[in-house]
Structures are given as structure tokens and as C-alpha cells.
């Protein structure tokens, strides 16, 4: 098991060019190319570990980048390109998972923690509420204190 892991790593390393997007992929139209790059960042290289096709050097990532560019040149909108890829590869291809029943917990957790935490803090405060501010100072002392508070350099 261990040897095979090393072997896979070796294979992976030896087949890897240093980086992803290659010069021959770049589209002539800069606006279209910019859209292709923006889309690539959101799409997963399916055979990689958590890499977008924009980052990945795997051959499949290159195929997907070319496919994205093909679709864009054919006049697809960004959403259409994504829908097309999801229809072929499933939601796995999206690095930002869609909001569907299976991902409900994923999307709701941050909000839930924030709200639950806030509620817990407020409720906790209710339990240990500050006693009503009582002053043990004479009115004249109060006035003197207030004067001191107004001017921090007076002391």
C-alpha cells in the first residue's frame, strides 16, 4: 500500500510539467480568455486533489480547459458552460458546491454557528446580568469625576 502510494506520487511527479495553462491554449480574444480563466478557477480537475483546472498540470485538466474555451467560442454563457460540465461530470466538478439538499448543512453551518453563538452569548448575559449601576459617590464627587473624565490630561 505504502509503496504504491509512493509509486503514484512518482508517476504524478514525472508526468507533471511545471504549471498549468499553456501558451497554445490561450484564446486570441482577451475578453473571452479572461472569462475562460475565471471559469477555470471554479472548476475542479477531477483526477487531482483539490486543484482547479486552472492550477492543475494534469492532462485531463488541459482537456477541460480546452473544452471550456471551445464552449465559450461557440457562444455559451458562463452558466451554460458550467451546466454542460455538470451534466457530463456531476457536481463534483464545481469547486463551489451548488445549494442543494445534500449540501444544505455545508452552507448553513457557518450561519448557524454565528447565530447560535450570538444567541448563547446574549442568553448567557441575561443569566449573569450586571447589577443596576449604583453609585456610592456624593453628587459633588460625581461632578468632579465627570470633569476628570472629560479631560484625560487634567490629572
Amino acid at each position, binding site marked *: 500500500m505504502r509503496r504504491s502510494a509512493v509509486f503514484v506520487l512518482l508517476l504524478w511527479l514525472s508526468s507533471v510539467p511545471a504549471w498549468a495553462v499553456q501558451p497554445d491554449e490561450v484564446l486570441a480574444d482577451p475578453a473571452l480568455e479572461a472569462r475562460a480563466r475565471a471559469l477555470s478557477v471554479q472548476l475542479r480537475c477531477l483526477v487531482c486533489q483539490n486543484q482547479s483546472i486552472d492550477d492543475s498540470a494534469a492532462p485531463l485538466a488541459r482537456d477541460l480547459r480546452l473544452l471550456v474555451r471551445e464552449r465559450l467560442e461557440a457562444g455559451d454563457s458562463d452558466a451554460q458552460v458550467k451546466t454542460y460540465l455538470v451534466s457530463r461530470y456531476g457536481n463534483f466538478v464545481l469547486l*463551489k458546491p451548488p445549494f442543494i439538499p445534500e449540501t444544505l448543512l455545508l452552507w448553513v453551518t457557518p450561519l448557524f454557528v454565528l447565530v447560535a453563538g450570538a444567541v448563547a452569548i446574549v442568553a448567557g448575559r441575561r443569566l449573569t446580568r450586571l447589577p443596576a449601576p449604583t453609585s456610592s459617590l456624593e453628587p459633588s464627587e460625581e461632578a468632579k469625576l465627570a470633569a476628570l473624565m472629560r479631560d484625560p490630561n487634567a490629572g
Partner: protein
Amino acid sequence: MITETGHYALVLALALALVQSVLPIWGTTRRDPSLVATAVPVALGQLLLVAYAFGALVYDHVVSDFSVLNVVENSHSTKPLIYKLSGVWGNHEGSMLLWVLILALFGGMVAGFARSMADDLRANTLAVQAWISSAFLLFILLTSNPFTRMLPPPIEGQDLNPILQDPGLAIHPPLLYLGYVGFSIVFSFAAAALISGRIDAAWARYVRPWALLAWIFLTLGIAMGSYWAYYTLGWGGFWFWDPVENASLMPWLAGTALLHCTAVMEKRETLKSWTLFLAILTFSLSLLGTFLVRSGVLTSVHSFANDPTRGTFILLILVVFIGGSLALYAWRAPVLKQGGLFAPVSRESALVLNNLLLTTCCATVLTGTLYPLALEAATGDKISVGAPFFNLTFGPLMVAVLLVVPLGQSLAWKRGDLLGAAQRLTAAVAVGAVACALLLAFRHGGPTLAPLGVALAVYVVVGAFTEIARRSGLPGVSLTTALSRLVGLPRSVWGTAFAHAGIGLTLLGLAATGWGVEQIRSIKAGDVVDLGPYQAAVIGTETHPGPNYTEAAVRVDLRRGGALVTTVTPSRRSFATRQSTVSQAGIATLWFGQVYISLGDSHPDGSVDARLFWKPLVTFIWIGALIMGFGGLLSLSDRRLRIGFARRALRAAPMHPHPAE
């Protein structure tokens, strides 16, 4: 021989760890001082033995003893000495040994330096620390023995994965481990407090330096890892929301919350049980990180050595320690007396808000990291959670954190004045707004979020020093008075300011990526490529021989307005032993920005595919982290926190306190 003694030392260390797990705690419950007193020498002995074992493995690697399997699999006789040394922890067995060494080191440091601590608290803490050591020593001895022999020994080793043959490997893992294993001692302190049922401001004062120390290392370790990825992986990215990165970010977020929380507890004796919870949570997340990285449950660029068969063992450790400590917490925490009260608008409340936001950040990263695994295990559905998810969820939370940071610094303890605090921050807000307006006016066509990011960053940096400026009394007092006031401020106040300014600078670096320039093209001698304010002129190709590789490089002159600024030589290194190639980016740091060039495939016509970047202010991302670490160090050097100061101060009539504190 040395190899066998190293192995034996590990066995003895386990025996001592088991003794240390039991005797001190038995002593504190039976009130037997002689049993309590065993904790210190046994902890020191355990450290000595683990250090010996580690030294033995280092020795095997340095002399290239190819009768040791670990050396065969990860070393080569021609490998440079620095990689023979760092190769010790560039593999599973060695990195687990480093883990245990740091565990024993923190135990030993508490035994050696924290002499002023109450004896029973120290004894219990060391006992809990030994529980962790015992578990991991057992793990090493049963599943990951680094001293296994290989007979007959091969003539040559298989070399270290070329991606790891980088100075980054010498620095990143030790720093990171010092950070997240360092939080083990904080966990042990928390468990000890729960066992004894006593926790007070003195406890927070003992714990704070250790939490701070671990936090500094973790901060620097994460930053170093990010810079390493940035310069080796070749596409100029520095954070990928990879599960392995998230594994180190989660303890950092929880640890940051913990640091702020101990500040409240030390000053105001409140938030006790929450502080304990965070202490447990932080180290639990470290354990979770170790599980994720070491078990092979996820394989990624970082998981250079993993083995699923070991996963079960670590999972068991994880369940026992997290489950056990949480159970202990649920059982004992309600006993704790709550301390001082504070108004809804106060420094304490700001820190509670900071904790709420940081905890939510942490929960977000945790769900994002584990959700795909859980979903696949439960339903078989595969989803991906990557950068776009985290940018959308973690991003806004972090913005909220940063907005609150200067405000919290400006609020008084116990009962603050929100309006006053806001007024004091007028300057910070104004400078931020001006920076934003200038960028919008003079930088056309850039991304819309970048100027806002810069505005927030400037606000945080200026805001970090606002409180100090106010305390100096300027402009109401003479310069000398102001200076003497500034010098008289506690170091921890300066530490806070620097740490907060550091996170602001990091954000500045992140925001500035919006103005980066990227060119993807084939280059050959004579080409000139425009990179923002610079022009990259390709001079030609050259080859250099290395110790265990050959390097094909391209020489590129960087010019500005025709004048030569500097030369970079991006290259690709071919390692014969592993038949692989590693790209070495050519990087020139020009002021705070960088020109970054990395190479791809070569073509028969002599041209080379290249990716060329101009990244303005990018170094601020890591400079910010260094400054955060510096702030931590300043805070650590505060006399109030110097280990043992509390008791000495009590003995020798309290020094006259600073008027500001």
C-alpha cells in the same frame, strides 16, 4: 548499533511516559509530595530519551546508513547535507518522531522553567502531557518505527522526493509542529485545571506564554509553508484551501481566539470555561490535522507520506483524547465559578465578539474540509469544496473580524464608550478612505474589491497604533513626555499593536494581488515581455550541474525604462534518481513586489513555455505574518508574562505598576 539504541531509547521513553502519566496525578489526589515530585525529573528524562532517539535517526541519515529502511526510502548519498538533515522529517516515521520530540520538549520546558507554578498544577499538567506522549510513542513503536533495518542493505538510497529538496523543508515542518504540537501543553494545562477544579487568573497567566509561544510558531510555520508553496509550485498561488493547509489554519484560528480569551481571563477572571473549551478545541484541531495528514484519508500535494493502515490508530487516539477531554469538560466545567462582569460595550465584549467570529471562521473551515469526506462516506455522493466556497464564506467573516480589531483595541475594559472609541478611530478610517479614493482615481480598470481591501488593510494598520498614539498624550504633551510614556507602556500593548498591524499588512498584500499582471507565452532569446512597470528581456538558455540534478535555466534581464534592474534565472531541475523534474521559479523582489517567472516545456525550436508575473506588494502577505510573530514575541517578553514573574513579584513587594495599566 546507534540505530538499535535509538529504538531502545524510544521504548524507555514510553516506559517513562507511562510512569509520568500515573504517579504525579496519583500524588496530587493522595496529597503525597514525593509522588508529585516525580513529575519533573521523569518529564526531563523522557525528553532526554526522545531527543536521543531523534539524534540517532539524524545520525543514520547524515552518514547515509542504507541498512536502515527509512534512510533507504528517503535519502541518497549525493544528497546535500541540509536535505539529509531535513529529510529526517520529510517522511512519515521521521515526522512522527519530530512530533513526539516536540511533545516531550514542551513537557520538559514546563518541568524545567515553570518552577514558580503551583506544584500540583504542574504535576497534573505534566501527567496529561504524558498521556499524549504515551499514545504517540506507542503509535510510533507499533506502526511507524523509523529504525527498522533493511537486510541486505542496498548500495544506494531512493532519494528524497525532489519537491521536498528545498530549504522550505528544513524550516516549515519544525515551525509548524512547534506550533501545533505546542498547543498540547495548553491542552494539558486545561485538563489539569479541570481535574483539580481550580482555575483563576494565575492559571491564565501561566498558560498565556505557552499559548503565545505555540501561536508564534504556528503563525510563522503557516506563513513559511505558504511562501514555500508559492515559490515551488510554479503558478504563483500561495494558499489553495487544500485540506492539509486547512488542517493548520483551524488550530491557528482557535489558538488566536484562545490567546484573546486568556487576555480577558487574566485581566478580569471571566470567560473561564470558554477559555478551557478553546484550549481543548485548539489541540483537538491539531490532532485532527495530524489525522488528516498522516492517515491518508486525503491525498494531496502535501501528503507526501501517508499510509491508510495507520489511520485507524490515529483515529483511535483522536477519539480518546477529544472525546475524553470533552467529557471531562462537560463534567467539571459547570463547577467553575464565574468571575468578573462586564458591560455590553467593553473590551471584554469586543473580545467575545472576536471569539464568536473566529470560532465561526474555524467552524466554516472545519465543515468545508470534512463535509465532502462525510458526504461521500454517508451517501456516496461526491462534491468538491474549494477556494470559491471559502472565499464566499470565510472571506466576509474575516472582514468582520478585521473591522472589529481596532475598535476592540480602543475600548476600555469593563465598561467602554463606543462613540468615543469610534471617534478615536476617525484618523484610521480617514486614512483608509483616502487610500481607497486615490486608488480608484489613479488605477483604472482594476478589480473593484481590491481598493476596498486596501482601505480595510490601511484602517487596520493605522487603527492598530491608534491606541498607543492616544496613550502617548500627543499632541497635548511635549515630545519628551510622550516618548517616556511610550517607553513606559507595557510590551504587551506594543505586541498587540504589531500583531494587529501584521494582519493588516497581510491583507494589503492579498488585496494588491488584484493588480497583478500575468503573461503566458513561449519565450526565446530576444523576446521582451511587458510586466507592469518592468520589461522582461529573454537573454538565452544555459545549463548548470547540481549535486544530484542538472538544471536547465533561462536568463532573463528585467528592465525598467531601458535600464537594467536585475537578472533572474528560472530553471527546471531534473533529478536522475527519481526521474523527475522540478521547476524553480525565477523571482526578483523589487521593493515589496515581485517579478515571478516559471518555466514549462521546451520546444524543438529553442523556445520555452513560460508563465511570467508581476505581483505588486505580494511580499506583504508574508511580511505581515512575520510582523504578527514579532508582535507575539514582544508580548511574550512582557515582564508580566515572564514565567515565574507572578510569584517573584508577590514575594518581593509588588513593583509600582504602570499608571496606564
